[in-house]
């Protein structure tokens, strides 16, 4: 295609309004393309709106729309609104334009009032938040109770359990989490040792690094780091998986077939998490100790041999068991919270996003609270 004077042509399309003096008074002559795309060009609507102001003020104006090359409903709406939503006394249009404006006129209704909440309703909404919280608690308790019943069922007939799902989840939650937990653990070990080394060197207490690093990493940091990483990684994934199943009616389909979602979806994930979480914790602890050991060798001249031989004396083995026990609880909590929020997702995109966010926040909070509880309960163990 050739381009005959693109500037002139595009200038012709600009929607325009000019007031001209005719024999029987002022005539508003309209030209150009009065369609949404053209009207949306920068500045066009503002300029037109100012020109149309004259039309709003002068009721006796004669309107001539015949110069409009193209008119769509947006353009017609602008014109109709300019007329104050009533037909002007003098009007000249092409038949097609008239039907278009007639259609706009027919369907132009005052905006329905958006339902607004009164003060009383807002007060009630406050109560609703509380009710939702109890709702969550009830649902969660219900799910845990169902899980307990399902576990009994599993114990009675362990061969019929969903073991394939369990092993699949062990792989997805556990194996694929190994690189990231190792990396984070190692970096934390390096950073901690580096910072403590600055202090210990001043007091010449280089060897204390083994006690401090070992105790901190094995008793607290290892389980916590692993749990937070897994909550962010797999807790959100669990919520999203189950949530999408809700959105696509898969959960209902399972129920219709007589398959309990808690038995097939929640239990395998809870079991997999309970198995995997202590293993990831050990892995994270190992990575953190490795990072710390290498840094200690480099900064403090504490050899890896010394670290490895001093560690069993510095940190009692009960600390390790405490870490493993905590991890089982953390893992189960993350799985349960993830499943809980997944099962509550409503079939729309916003709810899915909200559920996933809430799941991660809630599971990390739950892990921290549980950890505090452990710290209080087991303050006499291993110290």
């Amino acid at each position: 295609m050739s381009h005959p004077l693109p500037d002139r042509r595009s200038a012709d399309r600009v929607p325009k309004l000019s007031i001209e003096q005719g024999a029987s008074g002022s005539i508003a002559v309209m030209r150009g393309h009065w369609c949404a795309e053209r009207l949306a060009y920068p500045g066009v609507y503002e300029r037109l709106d100012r020109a149309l102001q004259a039309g709003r003020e002068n009721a006796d104006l004669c309107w001539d729309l015949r110069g409009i090359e193209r008119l769509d409903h947006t353009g017609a709406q602008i014109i109709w609104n300019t007329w104050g939503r009533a037909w002007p006394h003098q009007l000249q249009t092409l038949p097609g334009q008239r039907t278009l404006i007639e259609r706009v006129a027919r369907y132009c209704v005052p905006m329905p009032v958006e339902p607004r909440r009164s003060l009383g309703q807002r007060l009630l909404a406050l109560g609703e938040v509380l009710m939702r919280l109890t709702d969550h608690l009830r649902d969660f308790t219900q799910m845990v109770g169902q899980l307990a019943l399902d576990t009994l069922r599993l114990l009675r007939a362990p061969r019929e359990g969903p073991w394939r799902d369990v092993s699949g989840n062990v792989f997805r939650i556990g194996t694929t989490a190994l690189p990231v937990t190792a990396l984070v653990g190692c970096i934390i070990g390096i950073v901690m040792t580096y910072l403590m080394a600055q202090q210990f060197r001043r007091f010449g207490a280089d060897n204390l690094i083994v006690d401090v690093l070992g105790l901190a990493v094995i008793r607290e940091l290892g389980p916590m780091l692993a749990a937070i990483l897994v909550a962010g990684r797999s807790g959100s994934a669990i919520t999203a998986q189950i949530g999408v199943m809700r959105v696509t009616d898969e959960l209902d389909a399972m129920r219709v077939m007589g398959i309990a979602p808690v038995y097939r979806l929640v239990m395998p994930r809870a079991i997999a998490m309970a198995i995997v979480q202590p293993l990831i914790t050990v892995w994270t602890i190992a990575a953190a100790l490795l990072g710390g050991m290498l840094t200690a060798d480099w900064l403090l001249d504490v050899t890896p041999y010394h670290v490895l031989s001093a560690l069993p004396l510095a940190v009692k083995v009960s600390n390790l068991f405490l870490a493993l026990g905590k991890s089982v609880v953390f893992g189960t909590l993350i799985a349960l919270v993830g499943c809980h929020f997944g099962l509550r997702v409503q079939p729309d995109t916003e709810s899915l996003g909200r559920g996933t966010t809430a799941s991660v926040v809630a599971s990390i909070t739950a892990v921290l609270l549980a950890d505090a509880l452990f710290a209080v309960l087991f303050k006499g163990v291993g110290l």
Partner: protein
Amino acid sequence: MSALQTDNVVQIEGLWTVFRSAGREFLIHQDLNLGIPRGQLMSLVGASGSGKTTILRQILGLETPERGRVQVLGKPADKLGERGAASRVGMLFQHGALFSAFNVLDNIAFPLRELRAFPAALIHDVAMVKLQMVGLDASHAYKMPADLSGGMVKRVALARALVMDPPLLLLDEPTAGLDPDSADAFCALLRSLHTELGLTVVMVTHDLDTLFELSTHVAVLADKRVLTVGTPQEVMRDPHPFVQDFFLGERGRRAMALLRTDSAAV
């Protein structure tokens, strides 16, 4: 042949489409040509897997063909996604594809609002007109998509597709998933909008009732190309076994009573 005229709204020339999955290649279209003149309501029919929806997606520029040219309104299809695309092509997706986070009014107003040129009151007015043009009551404006019935979802989606008055409208299975009454009502709506707004419509459907009731023209896809194009009566005379099976089987005879009588006039 009319398919080679250049003033067609949609012009497809020498189209090759290849699907690749698991290392294997499937040739879907081989040197396919199709032209859709202004004002027609063209139905694409063909067996499952004959690439009907793929052609719609290629017209929309959502997929790029292996070879060949797809021109829409005189422009290459892949240039379609630029600013103001909603004023050139409207698409009614099979399941509506309404934004579930927006209410009905905001869904319809969305393309217009994204231009960031008009005041909110005007955008609302335009959206409300469109809402009622598709036969919905103004009181539905603040409902969420999750609260709508299947027929209403399609109507809202149609209103959204038409909000900027595009000259070309694409429909993917417009009556799928609707009960017969809603399907009939929706067909009537599409038909009146087609004539009233002077739209060019490309439709993919498996439903013979819808096909006969709406189409002014039919293009049959078979053997990786467009087998035949014409009015439903013309197409049915084609001796190809697919055509015979598709139109003149049991279902076809039942649906033929609906045949659009004014189709020759368009």
